């Protein structure tokens, strides 16, 4: 038997070792659980560790493999953001209002992973109901960045990104409404992708803002990310917004297009003032290297500066409606009261955290009589302009390259008391959701204080394979492993 070194493993390399019988799934899962026991007291990425269930599933996976069965993820431990339902396990959304909720069914993405033999090692921390950019809004505890425990892992899928970065599970699923996969991936030095809206079924994902939410994968490599996306993508009659299209073979595409040159746009609005200098320098070094093979062109997305305001009207408006279901009646936390209205109010007042209440209030205000035209309708019109910016840009270029965040990961506590400052940190990821486009975050370097720097690649609707292809090329070009120092001790 080969000794398992989690730092060196990817999903694809682990599958090879499993197939060659050099390791067993039981050993792999045990090693991953050990890693959680070692590191998670410091990182706090997990809200629930599925120890017993994962070990049982691993033994079953090994038995199936003995019988000659093979599946795409047979025996591979992965984690899942705690707003995606796995039957029989808790789904809390990091909220007190769902603290005791047990998922009655599987999300479609989970069903697909199960069918391929994946093992769910645990549910990961998030900002309550995926509302936040730092995982500090979790009702239970904040997650710490594996690269620097005093810093945030990003959010809202901070638990998933931190888990993958510290190799507690080989991959993860998160959700991205305004950057919630890409920003934490950037902060934790892993790959994270928000697919085109409609590529992955949202059935079983707890709804936050339905016209923006999308499930997507995290991996330590672009290949792993593409591989996970392949499994969860595809039409689902249970999600009326899921796209009835055929999904291309992502891995095959990125391998066949290793040498393809793309026309890459750099939107000037994304490189204007306010960007961290050291980060910008690293990004431009990559851009210089890309010039050897690709055509780089400056483009303009003129309505970028309106994206944050647009998003923070639309997303809370949809959230106001989606979160009306948490009323203490059918499931979740109930505050006792003799009167029904009082029960609603008390359950929600005690069950929801500050940021969630703030957004529900913002949404209600934006939709209320007298303000609807000036806020919600206006924002929906500006959304058209933002979408049109991208559609015109994609007439000139194949893909767009941008920073993911204005700065490397910030410190825990640094922005939590100023909601608007926190909102503004999403400036480069939000427009992608408003336009429904695919976007990926890949790590490209480290700052002098050893913090990850990432870039975002954005593609046209349903050109997810092109986004992955350029990401794969850049990953090969850089040829760097992103292993947080905490793993080396």
């Amino acid at each position, binding site marked *: 038997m080969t000794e398992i070194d989690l730092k060196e493993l990817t999903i694809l390399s682990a599958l090879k070792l499993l197939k060659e019988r050099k390791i067993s799934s039981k050993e792999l899962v045990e090693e991953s659980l050990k890693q959680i026991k070692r590191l998670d007291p410091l990182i706090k990425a997990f809200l629930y560790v599925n120890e017993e269930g994962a070990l049982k599933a691993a033994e079953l996976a090994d038995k199936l493999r003995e019988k000659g069965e093979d599946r795409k993820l047979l025996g591979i431990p992965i984690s899942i953001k705690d707003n995606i339902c796995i039957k029989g396990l808790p789904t809390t959304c990091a909220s007190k209002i769902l603290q005791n909720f047990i998922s009655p069914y599987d999300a479609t993405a989970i069903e697909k992973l199960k069918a391929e033999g994946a093992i769910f090692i645990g549910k990961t921390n998030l900002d309550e109901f995926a509302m936040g950019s730092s995982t500090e809004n979790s009702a239970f505890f904040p997650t710490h960045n594996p690269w620097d425990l005093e810093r945030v892992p990003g959010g809202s899928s901070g638990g998933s990104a931190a888990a993958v970065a510290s190799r507690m599970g080989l991959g993860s699923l998160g959700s991205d409404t305004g950057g919630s996969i890409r920003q934490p991936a950037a902060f934790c030095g892993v790959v994270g992708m928000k697919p085109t809206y409609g590529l992955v079924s949202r059935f079983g994902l707890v709804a936050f803002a339905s016209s923006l939410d999308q499930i997507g994968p995290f991996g330590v490599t672009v290949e792993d990310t593409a591989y996970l996306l392949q499994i969860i993508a595809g039409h689902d009659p249970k999600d009326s917004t899921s796209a009835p299209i055929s999904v291309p073979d992502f891995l095959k595409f990125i391998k066949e297009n290793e040498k393809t040159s793309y026309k890459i746009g750099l939107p000037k609005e994304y490189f204007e003032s306010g960007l961290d200098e050291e980060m910008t320098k690293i990004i431009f070094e990559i851009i210089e290297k890309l010039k050897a093979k690709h055509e780089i062109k400056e483009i303009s997305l003129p309505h970028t500066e309106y994206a944050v305001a647009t998003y923070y009207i639309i997303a809370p408006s949809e959230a106001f409606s989606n979160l009306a279901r948490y*009323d203490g009646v059918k499931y979740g936390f109930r505050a006792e009261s003799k009167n029904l209205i009082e029960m609603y109010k008390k359950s929600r007042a005690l069950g929801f955290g500050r940021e969630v209440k703030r957004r529900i209030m913002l949404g209600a205000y934006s939709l209320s009589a007298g303000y609807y035209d000036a806020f919600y309708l*206006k924002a*929906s*019109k*500006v959304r*058209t*302009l933002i979408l049109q910016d991208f559609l015109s840009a994609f007439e000139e270029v194949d893909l767009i390259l941008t920073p993911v965040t204005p700065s490397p990961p910030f410190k825990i506590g640094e922005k939590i008391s100023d909601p608007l400052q926190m909102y503004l940190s999403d400036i480069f990821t939000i427009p992608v959701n408003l*336009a*429904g486009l695919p976007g990926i975050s890949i790590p490209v370097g480290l700052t002098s204080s050893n913090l990850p720097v990432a870039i975002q690649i954005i593609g046209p*609707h349903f050109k997810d394979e092109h986004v992955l292809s350029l990401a794969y090329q850049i990953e090969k070009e850089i040829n760097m492993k992103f292993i947080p120092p905490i793993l080396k001790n």
Partner: protein
Amino acid sequence: MAISLEEVYKIAHLCRLEFTEEEAKVLTEELSKILDYFKKLQTLNTENVKPTFHALKIKTPFREDKVKEFPYIEDILKNAPQLCERMIVVPKVVKAP
């Protein structure tokens, strides 16, 4: 202030939320700051722009009107805060005549 304390209480009622006086005061300030930032959008002319509610053109998909068994009823009932047999108990909503 873009929003008054009274408006915060009114909206809170519409949201079925309640706040202490201290919470409501802080929220009024926070929301005012955010709403002021939103005013940025008013500088844009959107007179001839149609709103986008979904980034992709989607249509309501139709399916056959066939009954399918839903196998998770018991699992759903297990999450209820209070049950009486297979019914969910809530505070009384009607007054006795």
